[in-house]
C-alpha cells in the first residue's frame, strides 16, 4: 500500500461525506453478502424447504453429507474436470505467452484474438460445445471419422462428458491466462535473457531456467484462481447436462458423470427445495476450496523454490 499523501487538516474535520461515499457498498454487502453467508451457516443446521417451519437438526445435514455417495461422486467429478481443464489451460497458456513474447509483430491482434473467448457468454459457449461433441452430427466425431478413428459417445460416456465440460473451460481460459503470463514475461529484465544467450542456453533451456522461475508469483496466482473457479464450475455442466428434473430426478447427465459440486448444491437447494442440505453442501464446497487452494499454494511454492 502506498504511503498516504500529505493532506491539509484544519483541526477536527468531520468525515461524514467520506463515510457516506463508502456506505452503499457496505450496506449492499451487509444485506446481500455478509448476512446471507451467516444465515446459510445457520441454515446448515436446520431442515427447511423455504416455506414451513425451520426445524433444528444439529449436525444431521453434515452427517448425511458424509454418507451421501452422490456428493462424493460430485466431488470426484469436479476434481477430474478441474484437472482436465486446468493442466492443459495453464501449460498451453505458458507456451502461447512465451511465443507471443518473442513474436514482435501482430501482438495486439493476437492478444485480442486470444482474449475473445473469455468475454463470450458461457451459456452460448457450452451450447456450442454440446453441438460440437454431439455423437451423431458433431464436428469432433466427423473429424474422427474422417481420419479413420471410431466415433465416441462424448455426451453420454462419463469420461467423454467430462472432456466436453473441460474443453469449454480450456477454450475460455487459455487465452486469458496467456495474456496474464505475457504481461509477467514482459516485466522480466532483458539482461537475464542476454546473459543466458551468452552462456549458450537455447530457447527451451531459457524458458525453463529463466522464464518459468521468474513468473513464479504469477503462476501461483493463476493456479489459485483456476482452483477457486474450477472447483465452483457450474454453468458448463448445468447447460449441457442439467436435465429437466421433472422428467429425470437426477442431474449431471447419464450416470451423473458431469455432476459437479455446485451443480449438486443447486439441484438440492433449488430443484428439491432442500435449503438446509443445500446450505450444508455450500459450506462443504467452501471448505474443499480453501483446503485445496492452500495445498496448491504449498505445492507450487515448494516446487518453485527447489
Amino acid at each position: 500500500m502506498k504511503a498516504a499523501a500529505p493532506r491539509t487538516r484544519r483541526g477536527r474535520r468531520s468525515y461524514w461525506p467520506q463515510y457516506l461515499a463508502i456506505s452503499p457498498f457496505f450496506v449492499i454487502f451487509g444485506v446481500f453478502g455478509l448476512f446471507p453467508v451467516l444465515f446459510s451457516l445457520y441454515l446448515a443446521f436446520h431442515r427447511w424447504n423455504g416455506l414451513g417451519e425451520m426445524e433444528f437438526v444439529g449436525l444431521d445435514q453434515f452427517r448425511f453429507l458424509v454418507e451421501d455417495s452422490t456428493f462424493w461422486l460430485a466431488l470426484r467429478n469436479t476434481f477430474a474436470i478441474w484437472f482436465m481443464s486446468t493442466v492443459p489451460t495453464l501449460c498451453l497458456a505458458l507456451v502461447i505467452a512465451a511465443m507471443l513474447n518473442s513474436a514482435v509483430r501482430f501482438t495486439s491482434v493476437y492478444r485480442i484474438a486470444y482474449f475473445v473467448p473469455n468475454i463470450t457468454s458461457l451459456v452460448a459457449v457450452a451450447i456450442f460445445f454440446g453441438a460440437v461433441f454431439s455423437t451423431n452430427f458433431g464436428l469432433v466425431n466427423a473429424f474422427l471419422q474422417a481420419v479413420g478413428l471410431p466415433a465416441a459417445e462424448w455426451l453420454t460416456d462419463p469420461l467423454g462428458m467430462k472432456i466436453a465440460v473441460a474443453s469449454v473451460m480450456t477454450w475460455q481460459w487459455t487465452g486469458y491466462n496467456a495474456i496474464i503470463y505475457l504481461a509477467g514475461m514482459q516485466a522480466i529484465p532483458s539482461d537475464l535473457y542476454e546473459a543466458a544467450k551468452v552462456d549458450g542456453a537455447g530457447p527451451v533451456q531459457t524458458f525453463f531456467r529463466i522464464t518459468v522461475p521468474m513468473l513464479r508469483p504469477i503462476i501461483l496466482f493463476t493456479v489459485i484462481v483456476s482452483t477457486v473457479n474450477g472447483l465452483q464450475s457450474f454453468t458448463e455442466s448445468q447447460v449441457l447436462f442439467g436435465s429437466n428434473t421433472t422428467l429425470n430426478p437426477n442431474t449431471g447427465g447419464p450416470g451423473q458423470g458431469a455432476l459437479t459440486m455446485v451443480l449438486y448444491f443447486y439441484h438440492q437447494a433449488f430443484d428439491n427445495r432442500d435449503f438446509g442440505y443445500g446450505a450444508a453442501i455450500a459450506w462443504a464446497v467452501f471448505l474443499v476450496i480453501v483446503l485445496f487452494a492452500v495445498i496448491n499454494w504449498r505445492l507450487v511454492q515448494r516446487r518453485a523454490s527447489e
Partner: protein
Amino acid sequence: MRTTFLRRLPLHLILLVGVVFSIFPFYWMVVMATNTTSDIYRYPPKLTFGSELATNIVHVFEKIPFFAAMANTAVVAVATTALVLFFDSLAAFSFAKFDFPGRRVLFGLLLGMFMLPAQLALIPQFVIMVKLGWAGQLQALIVPAAANAFGIFWMRQYISRAVPDELLDAARLDGCGFLRQYWHVALPAIRPGLAFLGIYTFIAAWNDYVWPLIVLVDPDRLTLQVALSQLNRSYGQDYSMIMAGALLAVVPLVVVFLLFARGFIADAVKGAIRG
C-alpha cells in the same frame, strides 16, 4: 526487418493455429446458424455459410420472447453498470484520497470479501428476494450488484495514481467540498479507468447466469442467458435455431469488446495481477 520476420514465420504459424482455435467457434456458430438443421446433420458436415439465417432467427423469436429477454438483459446491464461506476468510484475516491478514521480496517474488510464464494450466499439471497417481493423482478439482479469489492479495489488503485493531490488541495482551498472535489477534480481525471470498469461490469452483467437462473422465477421475465439455456433444453435437437439464438446473444457483446479491446485487455491484466 523482413528477414527477422521470416525467421519468426514458424512462430507466427503456430500462433495462428491458436488464433484459429480461439476464433473457430464463432465461425462454426455462424455456419450452423445460417444452415438448416438437416444440413448440419449430414456427413461430411457442411463447412460454408448458408442462407437460412433469417428463417432460423424467426424460429428463435417464435420459441422464446427474445426481444423482451434482450431488453431485460440490456436494462440490467446498463443499470448495473451505471450504479457500479458511480458507487465504486465514489467509494474508491474516498478510500484513495481521504484519511478518515477506520479507513484501513474498512478497506481490509472490503478485501476480505473477495474470498467468500458466491454459492454460500445464494439460498439466503433468494429467500431475501422472495420476502422483499423482488423474486422474478429485475431489481433482484440490479440492486445486489450495484457496488462491488473488485471495482472499488481497482478504482482505488487507479485514483491514487491518476488524481494529483495538489489539485485536490487547491480545490479544497477554493472551498470545494467532498462531492465537488469528486465531480470536478476526480471524475475528469479517471475517465479511462471508468471506461474499463464500465465495460467489465457490462460484460459480467450481460453474461451472468447463475443468479438470474435462480431468482428470475417468472418465465415471462428472463434474461438472454436464461432464455437461451431454456431454448437449448426444450429444443436441443434443432441446432440451427439454437445457434442462431446463441449468435444473437453473443454478437452484441463481442462488438462492444472489439471496440474497446486494446485498452480493456491491458487494464484487465493490471487488475488481475494486482488482485
